[in-house]
């Protein structure tokens, strides 16, 4: 389904995620039997409405789902079955090979730690970079995402939403990972910043030949950026293939609906959401 450009790939085989004891002790099947793969250099979009299980798929890869989640099936990275590793074993894969740009960067930085320290911390831990070099590297990275030098010395609450999201991107790139997982990386931002950050993310990923998994509810947007798409509904994949094909010639009714719905919803939603979100930042 995706064009193989590199041997290094993340592969999901029959992945299912079940949440035990949710509200009222019900079990929720968030992801059912999903299989797909993404290679280095690929940009893959996972599209679906909220509750479709797209975020669960993404968070299952670095094994960051809550303890109540039961994951079955295999997740392979570079031939290793990372789904059977323990927390310590995952430490090598997380960030060094697979980095994450979270859904809302608002709350993804530890409040009492400066932006620069977030970056140097991972450099020191994963790359054994000496403190001084790490600081230089952090400054470089922040510059790459077009944050000026003073941003590094700031605390998370002193940055705006867009700045934080870019800082999150810089942190993700710190160890030169093979893959970047991005979970609705721009939903908390206003429309203009959204576009800017997303373009920056994709161009940096392409520049470095990394693989990108982008989770979003916005099918037309994903179609514009991604090489291929996976459409999910109620935990299952309903359609997948090259972006052009999925967007212009959807086979599945749900995909058609999704394209239509978003076309109808796009403008009013943008107007409605932006001011409310802004006040949080």
């Amino acid at each position, binding site marked *: 389904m995706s064009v193989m450009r590199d041997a290094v790939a993340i592969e999901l085989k029959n992945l299912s995620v079940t949440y035990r004891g949710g509200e009222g002790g019900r079990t929720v099947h968030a992801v059912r039997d999903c299989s797909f793969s993404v290679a280095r250099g690929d940009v893959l979009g996972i599209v679906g409405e909220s509750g479709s299980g797209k975020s669960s798929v993404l968070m299952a890869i670095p094994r960051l789902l809550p303890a109540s989640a039961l994951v079955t099936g295999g997740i392979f990275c570079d031939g290793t079955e990372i789904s059977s590793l323990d927390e310590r074993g995952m430490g090598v894969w*997380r960030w*060094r090979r697979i*980095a994450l740009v979270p859904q809302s960067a608002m709350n993804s930085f*530890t409040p*009492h*730690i400066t932006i620069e320290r977030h970056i140097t911390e991972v450099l020191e*831990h994963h790359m054994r970079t000496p403190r001084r070099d790490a600081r230089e590297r952090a400054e470089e990275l922040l510059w790459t995402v077009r944050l000026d030098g003073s941003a590094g010395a700031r605390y998370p609450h002193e940055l705006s939403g867009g700045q934080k999201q870019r800082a999150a991107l810089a942190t993700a790139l710190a160890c030169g990972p093979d893959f970047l997982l991005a979970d609705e990386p721009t939903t908390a931002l206003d429309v203009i910043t959204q576009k800017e950050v997303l373009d920056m993310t994709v161009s940096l990923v392409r520049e470095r030949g990394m693989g990108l998994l982008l989770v979003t509810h916005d099918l037309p947007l994903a179609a514009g950026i991604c090489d291929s798409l996976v459409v999910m509904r109620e935990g299952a994949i309903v359609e997948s293939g090259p972006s052009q094909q999925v967007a212009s010639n959807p086979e599945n009714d749900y995909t058609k609906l999704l394209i239509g719905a978003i076309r109808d919803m796009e403008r009013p939603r943008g107007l409605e959401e932006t001011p409310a979100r802004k006040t949080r930042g």
Partner: protein
Amino acid sequence: MIALLKRVGASVLVLGVVLVLNFFLFRIMPGDPLTSIVDPRFSPEAKAQLAAQWGLDRPMSEQFAVYIREMLSFRFGLSMMTGAPVWDELKTRVPNTVALLLPALILSTALGLSLGVKAALARGSIVERVVLLSGAVSFSFPSFFVQLILLLCFGYVWQVFPLRGTTSIPPPEGPLAILDYVWHIAMPLFSLVIMGFGGLALYIRNLMVKSLGEDYVLMARARGLPHGRVVWNHAFRSILPPVLTIFLLSLPGVVSGAVITETVFSLNGAGRFLLEATNSHDYPAAGAAFFLLALLTVVCNLLADLCYVIVDPRVRREGSRG
């Protein structure tokens, strides 16, 4: 900075009010202070002489001036029981109290901290149940009852520890003296630790449960940082400001509680000094002990504010809370 200066100003004001209250509390009671401590059969001349000794024959304003001078110089005047300066008596008592409270504080804080964090990490485990139980116990069991039970078990039934006192009589010499001292304060220390750690552990557990659920802790894990680093540098460090505050604000209560602990175990400390002074209507002595406790409270409140500023960058950068 200005906010901090304001806090310092408010603290000084509070201390001033306490000083004034302290002065008048002892003088508004029915009759003069002398009637309660002096044998009524004393001759008027003897009474007058005693009154002169404590300056009670001077006009109120002059008494107040002397009182303020004595308080601020930490001499605290003469004890009505012994006639010696109150400070001299306090000097022999305070070290005993510190020797009991300091290790108790260190141990119960260490225990409360580690158990609180552990309970938050292992929800539903035995550790968490212990923390929840000890928290409830520390809020609803009187400390002296628990201490009396300990005394009954270890002092009477099993006779492992002494029933009373700070040292054996006669006190042993040389290195044995230290052992003897440790043997005497072991049980009070133990009781303070088991009654002290529960509240802190419960508080830390509640904060940690919340903190561990934050996005930034998940992200710290996503960055592949080691477990200890995620728990302590990210999750725990972010709840440090309220933990420090609650710790500092609880200090005066812990010190006041020494009155009860020292009474139960008949230890010769500053707490019992306050009790003895109150019981024998030794107003300068009681006033001094009271003033020192109030001073401690005010200083702790101020330190709590200060810590918040130092430890929480959000407050530090903006110069005020919020």
